[in-house]
């Protein structure tokens, strides 16, 4: 009897979720007003309205709206049409997308369907889902999966980025989009594949998806120019869509891709710097100091916003992004480090921040990746007008889930991964370990005209292996960059890196092993902005 009551209660939950899925619209104006009142600093600190507030229709408090949001006032003399009132369109600002929670959920489910069909077309066994496989997955619960490193540490976060931007492109805030990402990830794991639901995928898809998602969303808005018309506008929308396909597709479908508006102010960074470098890299291994043949690489760094100062409650209004193509793999490094909270401390110029980290590193010598959160303290020496400045930054935090090569005690190097017997079915063994842990680090950067001259970086990461070889891994990475300016935006750079790994096995002998991978590179560097 008790059990039947519970079942009925759950069914009612499901039904009422749908029945209750009514979107308050006209009330949103007041929601936003109340939130700004409750947290006035959110307005005072930044000219942009807090994106965490679903402030659709907040005409009065939005600086943009006062100039552009009035339906009676065209944006430009050549603006094609006057905008309707913002609250009627459920937009947080004139250039913002229409808010729809229902569409966010629906688009997330469609994305899952798209991935499922794509896998089916590719002939993957795991795509042949039925209600029986759903049931089997629910009955089993979470497991560790055996997919290869790139799929789990880069593929799943990228898929999560699509869920995240399904929410962002439907007008949801950063924090709300995190929940949609978890929803998309959870439903994919249970209902998208015949594989049992994977715990590591849930973490990597959700946390990695949030980090990559907000980074790509903001990068897309850097490319998109909503003031343009005609072909140049079309190309700017297409360019943005390459970075953030879900938002791009939604804008073309809804017609936002041709609306002439101001860019939402939350997506206009207070500072922007981009750096590129292209050159050759020599990597050493445990067995040989350096290989004779260098690996070519192309590395891009983006510094979005100002991490050095200011009070911030807008997630990812400042972030750093790095991607390295080549250098031992197609994509050998991806890092996203986004600020969630920023707060100046005292009068001494100290800056406190809480950050989210996504890390992926894969090359022919080692593989490592992690989803982490940390707190940092930084201090800048030299005022903003000084030509030469130095930033000192230290951080420490927790790794929710990290991965690193699995090196059993009796092996000197990991064997090559074998292809799966049936496409899409991961039969293992998996050659990397999973576990939570901690991290800490310090970096010092000397800049001249806001361009890095010398950067010293150190990071230590501890992983306690829960799945794989029973061991504690301690990973350290040192990196020293020097870029000498040549002419204009061009420079020539030299980088030395040292990846050091200590593994403390939990065997009877408490074996300890160390591995070192030095790396040298030389390159042509240029400043993008």
């Amino acid at each position, binding site marked *: 009897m008790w059990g039947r009551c519970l079942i009925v209660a759950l069914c009612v939950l499901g039904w009422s979720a749908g029945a209750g899925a*009514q979107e308050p619209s006209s009330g949103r104006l007041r929601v936003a007003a109340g939130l700004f009142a409750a947290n006035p600093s959110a307005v005072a600190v930044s000219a942009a309205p807090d994106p965490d507030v679903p402030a659709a229709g907040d005409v009065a408090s939005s600086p943009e709206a006062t100039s552009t949001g009035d339906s009676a006032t065209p944006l430009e003399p050549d603006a094609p049409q006057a905008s309707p009132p913002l609250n009627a369109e459920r937009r947080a600002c004139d250039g913002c997308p229409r808010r729809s929670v229902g569409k966010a*959920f629906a688009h997330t489910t469609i994305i899952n369907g798209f991935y499922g069909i794509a896998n089916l077309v590719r002939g993957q066994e795991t795509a042949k889902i039925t209600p029986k496989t759903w049931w089997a997955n629910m009955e089993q619960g979470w497991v560790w999966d055996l997919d290869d490193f790139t799929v789990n540490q880069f593929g799943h976060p990228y898929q999560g980025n699509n869920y995240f931007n399904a929410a962002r492109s439907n007008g949801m805030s950063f*924090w709300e989009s995190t929940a949609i990402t978890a929803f998309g990830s959870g439903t994919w794991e249970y209902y998208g594949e015949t594989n049992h639901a994977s715990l590591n995928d849930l973490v990597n898809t959700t946390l990695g998806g949030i980090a990559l998602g907000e980074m790509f969303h903001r990068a897309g808005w850097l490319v998109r120019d909503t003031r343009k018309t005609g072909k140049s506008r079309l190309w700017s929308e297409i360019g943005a869509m390459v970075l953030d396909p879900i938002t791009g597709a939604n804008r073309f479908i809804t017609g936002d891709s041709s609306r002439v508006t101001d860019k939402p102010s939350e997506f206009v960074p207070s500072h922007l710097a981009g750096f590129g470098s292209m050159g050759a890299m020599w990597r050493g291994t445990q067995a040989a100091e350096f290989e004779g043949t260098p690996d070519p690489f192309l590395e891009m760094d983006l510094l979005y916003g100002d991490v050095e100062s200011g009070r911030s409650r807008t997630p990812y209004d400042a972030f750093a992004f790095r991607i390295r193509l080549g250098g031992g793999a197609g994509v050998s490094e991806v890092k996203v480090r986004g600020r969630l909270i920023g707060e100046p401390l005292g009068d001494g110029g100290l800056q406190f921040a809480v950050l989210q980290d996504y890390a992926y590193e894969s090359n022919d010598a080692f593989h490592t990746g992690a989803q982490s959160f940390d707190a940092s303290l930084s201090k800048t020496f030299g005022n903003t007008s000084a030509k030469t400045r130095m930033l000192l930054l230290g951080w420490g935090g927790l790794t929710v889930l990290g991965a690193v090569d699995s090196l059993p005690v009796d092996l000197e190097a990991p064997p090559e991964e074998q292809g799966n017997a049936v496409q899409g079915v991961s039969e293992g063994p998996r050659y990397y370990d999973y576990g939570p842990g901690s991290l800490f680090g310090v970096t010092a950067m000397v800049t001249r005209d806001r361009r890095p001259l010398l950067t010293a970086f150190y990071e230590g990461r501890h992983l306690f292996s829960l799945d794989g070889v029973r061991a504690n891994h301690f990973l350290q990475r040192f990196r020293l960059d020097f870029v000498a300016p040549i002419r204009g935006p061009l420079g020539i750079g030299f980088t030395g890196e040292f990846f050091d790994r200590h593994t403390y096995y939990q065997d009877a002998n408490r074996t300890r092993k160390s591995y070192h991978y030095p790396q040298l590179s030389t390159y042509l560097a240029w400043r993008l902005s």
Partner: protein
Amino acid sequence: MIRLLRPIVFCLAIAVVCAGTTASAQSASESSSVQDLKGPGSDFWLVLGGSFSTIRGDCQTCEGDYPYRHSGGFLGNAGFRVTPRMDAGLEIFWMPMETAGGNIRNTHIDAVGQFRPWASKGFFIKGGAGMAFVRNWVDVISPEAFNQKALSIVIGTGWVFRPHSRFGLQVFGAQHAAALGDLQTSTEQVPDVIGNFWSLGGGIVIR
């Protein structure tokens, strides 16, 4: 009990999927004021409740078929309101259970976010991650417990009645998982164990 588990889990899944798919058909029609959404309560968020829970500890690389076990559990949330739709904080989930060789007490401490997609309605989804502390008494080996730490994750859904009042009630379905590596039993040390906990319960909500 196993027969009971199947329809429970299936309905839980249907509830989650319905939240996503049926929502798209809904129209915007309701207006709510800030006070309606925030209510008389503060931004503090506290939930205290209990659950009926089923656990299965499984080794995915082993041949053995591991049983489902059932017990009561305690669940508590404490945190604050980030937005009218989003709460964030800590969750404690505690569940004792009898095993063939003794008993195990599981304590999950997770950082959680709880999201109500429609601010005026009580439906919510929840997710989080943290640590689980497992105290495992194996009577035939030692009177002392084997203490282990595990990676914990939680997902869940539910409904809050009177979501904007100072006092409310909620019913929830949740799934916790604890990935703890090796687990000592009375006969062997089982490798790569993940414990899955399915819970149905209710609690009081204080804001």
